[in-house]
């Protein structure tokens, strides 16, 4: 993973390929209430990523044997559309990577959704990646959180996720796809906004102990900014009237 291209990923002045500082997020825009059928929905445009989340629930749990008499079953499904990548046309059906991401994202939400309120039901969260450019699982989790809140499903918190990585021996925030491909580590994390608890944590590559700590702090700081965008999206979303639509062409904005 670590070879010559890393030298170009970050220059002497600490500026990255796309012009960002080492602790700077890509441009993000979050919009809620974009689908008519789903109980809750959200579009997250994060850099070049475009991720759509739709929630149904609480609803009847099918298959019945999955239902729990104590709580609702939270099922998240992360899926990539075949036209989402810059490269070839993708295969249909979830890959092993998609299945793994579905699991860790579901588990993050099991922590925050107050599922005991709706026993024997299911809360289904579907996240479709319509366009991908690195860091899709973080954008996906962020979108899902807004969609779940949009549906009025009780949650202890609004959670969001941010990835930190290492390129050119420097810990940097929010890797783009190129930085991830040629970088030295990728470390996505999800945080609860109330107390900074970590609800999703994955990591690959090589990091020293100090670097993991730097990464945690850097990600948590950034997650507060994303959280502010989620709150804004929810407050604007519920004011919407009439037929809902997905503004897929919308441009993301610089995160303050």
């Amino acid at each position, binding site marked *: 993973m670590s070879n010559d291209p890393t030298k170009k990923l970050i220059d002497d002045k600490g500026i990255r390929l796309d012009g960002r500082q080492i602790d700077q997020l890509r441009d993000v825009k979050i919009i809620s209430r974009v689908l008519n059928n789903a109980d809750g929905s959200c579009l997250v445009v994060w850099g070049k990523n475009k991720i759509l989340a739709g929630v149904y*629930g609480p609803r009847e749990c099918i298959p019945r044997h999955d239902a729990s008499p104590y709580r609702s079953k939270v099922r998240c499904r992360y899926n990539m559309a075949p036209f989402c990548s810059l490269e070839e046309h993708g295969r249909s059906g979830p890959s092993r990577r998609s299945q793994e991401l579905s699991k860790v994202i579901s588990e993050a939400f099991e922590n925050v959704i107050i599922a005991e309120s709706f*026993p*024997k039901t299911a809360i289904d969260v579907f996240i479709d990646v319509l366009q991908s450019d690195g860091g899709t699982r973080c954008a996906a989790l962020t979108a899902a959180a807004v969609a779940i809140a949009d*549906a009025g499903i*009780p*949650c202890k918190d609004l959670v969001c996720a941010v990835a930190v990585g290492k390129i050119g021996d420097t810990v940097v925030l929010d890797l783009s796809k190129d930085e991830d491909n040629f970088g030295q580590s990728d470390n996505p994390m999800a945080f609860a906004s109330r107390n900074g608890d970590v609800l999703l944590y994955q990591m690959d590559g090589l990091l020293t102990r100090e670097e993991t700590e730097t990464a945690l702090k850097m990600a948590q700081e950034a997650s507060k900014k994303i959280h502010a965008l989620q709150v804004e999206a929810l407050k604007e979303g519920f004011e919407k009237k009439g037929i809902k639509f997905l503004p897929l062409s919308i441009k993301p904005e610089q995160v303050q």
Partner: protein
Amino acid sequence: MTRILVPGEEVAQSSQRLAYTYTDGQKTYATVISLFSPEGKVIPLQGPYEPIMDDAVIGFVSDSRHSGYDVQIGSANKCFLSSRETRSSFKLSDMIMARIKSVDETGTIDLTDARLLKDGQLAKISPVKVPRLIGKKNSMINLLSHATGCQIYVGRNGMVFISNEGDFSLAREAIAIVEDQAHISGLTDRMAQFLADKTGKDMSNPPEVQYDSMPRSEGGSHSRDEYSRDRPRRHSGGFSRRSNERR
């Protein structure tokens, strides 16, 4: 000052027991997208139907057995009308209005006092906005009935029956307005103006709709205030089945 709350937003600096909130023992946070009223109540703006005893609900008969009927009320809850609880008999797909006799800890509902609804169609509104559609002392529903000339029955589950006689599409339009603007104050006055403009009728003193043919809870529930339903939806920190308790 009414402000909008989102899940995880702080509502109090201390641990409190308040509907639609969650406490970790130190502070209290909202759990759903809601309004924080000046009286300190959390009013949800969105969310599933939460059935409680005595609610009037509207639904469809989805299965018919010797022992009774399965009823679909558009929520995840299983709903059953025992043959012993009704003098009428129903067929598959019949639209009925009934009262909730009891809800068990898994959310399964037992119905009673069912009657057939016919010659009409259904509209839907988000269950949390039903109090707004009924209005204080039936104010909103009286306006709609008078303006449209339809008989309108509102189920607490968000299903609204509108009779065929009268202006059905105006009723639908008015319900959509309540759905969009339930959180904005002065809606009853604006609705009166809107209906007056649309129908040319005088909306200042709409006649009281006669509800004596409806199950009795419809009359009883309107004595509650406009928004709250006094439901104990508290969520204490950690896993606790006590969150399903009802007072």
